[in-house]
């Protein structure tokens, strides 16, 4: 596969439009299927559902809500998983303490919010605190065992146990809810008709503003990261490091500094995601393993070490979880699990991963 179609994935300067066009040329049937699915989805969202349709699929409101919840949850998963995949891609370090960093960020954001009363300030505090922990981990421990993948992973495992016990010690086992700030409180109308009243009046979808804003922020962060990776010098260094870090260090770049920076950034993103998760759901014991699992599945499905892959995987897993909870209550985990199995069977390197 890679030798036959390797070109289209590897050309960066030649323009993305070209690559997409070539992909369509190479995979006419897949392109057709994807186009049909996209058109069908758009129709599902924007058109009022015919009468017989609701009998089979339930209310349109439920479906649209699940869809929106899935997409916004995907935004949250992207924030967590992108740091995980970046750290893995560059340092080959499967950071199993990533879920703990997420939880730690949530708690720190909560504390900062309680002190200052500012929700946004919590993000700064969470980012900085988690970044410091990440830097310390890379500087004091992982730097000393470079190239020993398994040992590093085992160390992150030990650290995650200690972190989670420390957090239980400090914050106890009760769930903490981070309050939505007043200016983002409440639902807003969306230009989507979910039902038509008997009087002929259209009922619009109302959706929580905070989730929309956070999703927009996640998209912005994603775009900013893409630009940083593809248009800046540091980005070039990171991409070069993902491809061949030994070569990069031989060329005289300060790889250790880069590693610490990437670890800090990835950990900081996980910490910010902790506040998002605390606002969406809650900050509580056990959320660390939940989000570690989410990161793992997102990264396995999307492709290890790839940021667009993390975005795609996060969207797929977020949607499958929410749609699954609505339509297959007892088996919603199985749905994400099945997606993972199918991807592993057909494309072991993940949807957008490279061998």
């Amino acid at each position, binding site marked *: 596969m890679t030798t036959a179609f390797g070109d289209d994935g590897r050309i960066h300067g030649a323009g993305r439009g070209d690559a997409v066009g070539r992909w369509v040329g190479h995979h006419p049937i897949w392109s057709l299927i994807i186009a049909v699915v996209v058109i069908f989805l758009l129709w599902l969202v924007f058109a009022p559902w015919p009468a017989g349709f609701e009998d089979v699929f339930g209310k349109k409101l439920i479906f649209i809500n699940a869809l929106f919840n899935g997409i916004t949850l995907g935004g949250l998963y992207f924030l967590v998983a992108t740091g995980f995949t970046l750290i893995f891609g560059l340092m080959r370090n*499967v950071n199993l303490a990533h879920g703990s960093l997420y939880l730690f960020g949530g708690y720190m954001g909560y504390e900062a919010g309680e002190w200052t009363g500012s929700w946004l300030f919590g993000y700064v505090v969470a980012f900085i605190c988690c970044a410091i922990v990440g830097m310390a981990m890379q500087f004091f421990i992982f730097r000393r065992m470079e190239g020993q993948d*398994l040992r590093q992973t*085992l160390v992150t*495992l030990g650290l995650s146990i200690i972190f989670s*016990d420390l957090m239980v010690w400090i914050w106890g086992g009760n769930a903490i809810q981070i309050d939505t700030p007043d200016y983002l409180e409440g639902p807003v109308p969306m230009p989507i008709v979910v039902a038509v009243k008997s009087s002929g009046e259209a009922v619009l979808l109302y959706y929580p503003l905070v989730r929309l804003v956070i999703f927009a922020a996640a998209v912005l962060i994603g775009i900013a990261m893409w630009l940083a990776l593809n248009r800046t010098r540091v980005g070039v260094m990171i991409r070069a490091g993902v491809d061949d870090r030994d070569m990069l260090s031989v060329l005289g770049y300060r790889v250790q500094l880069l590693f610490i920076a990437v670890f800090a950034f990835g950990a900081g993103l996980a910490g910010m995601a902790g506040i998002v998760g605390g606002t969406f759901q809650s900050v509580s014991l056990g959320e660390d393993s939940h989000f570690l699992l989410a990161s793992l599945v997102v990264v396995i499905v999307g492709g290890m070490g790839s940021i667009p892959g993390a975005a795609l995987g996060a969207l797929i897993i977020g949607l499958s979880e929410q749609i699954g909870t609505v339509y297959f209550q007892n088996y919603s985990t199985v749905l994400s*699990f099945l997606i993972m199995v199918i991807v*592993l069977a057909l494309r072991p390197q993940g949807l957008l991963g490279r061998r």
Partner: protein
Amino acid sequence: MALVQTSKDGALGVGTAERSGPFAQWVSRHAAILLLGLFMVLFPIIANDFFLRQIAGWTMILGMIALSLMFLAGYGGMVSLVQMTVAGLAGYMIAVLGVSSLPKVSLFWPWWAAVPLAIIIAVAFGTLAGALSARTEGIYTIMITLALATSFFYLTLQNWPIFNGFNGFTTIPAPNFLGVKWGDPVPLYYMILFFAALSYAAVLYVSRAPFGLALQGVRDNPRRMEAIGYNVTAHRVAAYAFAALIAAIGGILLVWQNNQISPFSVGVDVVINILIIAVVGGLGHPIGPFIGALIYVILRTFALDALVAVGLDGRRFQMLIGLGFLIIVLFSPDGVIGLWRRWTTRMRAIDGSQRR
């Protein structure tokens, strides 16, 4: 082969064999393990039910599940976190197919029908998990198997028709046959001892059989093995199937010992504890997981009182485990066995210099 032999003997702390008959030689070469076996067989005479069940029983069951991980990690180079899940699935199947306090779900089959089917289902799952993760290499295995194990935990938590959700199953009795009530402490102890010894011997045998040697070749250099003509993926998947068999038996014994199974028997922390047991004991020899399990069980049973006695909070047990694990990983990557091996070689070196 000779090299392997001597290092194995060194691990068990046996000196040089004297010149005598082959039987005596064999006995003196395996003295440590034979003594241990004799001690384990006679253990019920000196131990009360608490030690039989809570210490020895748990050590051997957790040791078996960790042994299946050790086999994959030590000989195959595949650190699979799915072994506890395989064990848990076998346990769940015993509850679903056999007897439990939940007539709505359980099928109340006799043990001789439920046990083989439970093992078959669990081994099939373990093999499938292996087939999925054997397609990728090295560190990916941990990610994939951890994702599988965690998904299974959440599935049992939210699925009511088969796994009875949050509550799981209770009152799952060990069977009665051959006129013995196998749920009683002493018969259960001997049953667990039998299977633990059997799986220990099986792993030791397989590790020296052609299949095990090929597997170790695959661990050390998959590309070269592929070039020689070995089917690397098939060897890996077969290793997963063998390990799943051990884990499945361990899981069934776990349910009979514990009389219940719930999502928290297969939770992420339990899955990780199995890895900790295997790594702390040492991945170099099949006795390692049992040593690790003994340390873990003793800590779990007595750490609470010990911590309180020292003036610390007894609830910090998990941190103790984490710190101990971290210290082992940082300073002795080959576990307690590695410490022992290094100590014996140093002793021997001192011995040799004195003799000269």
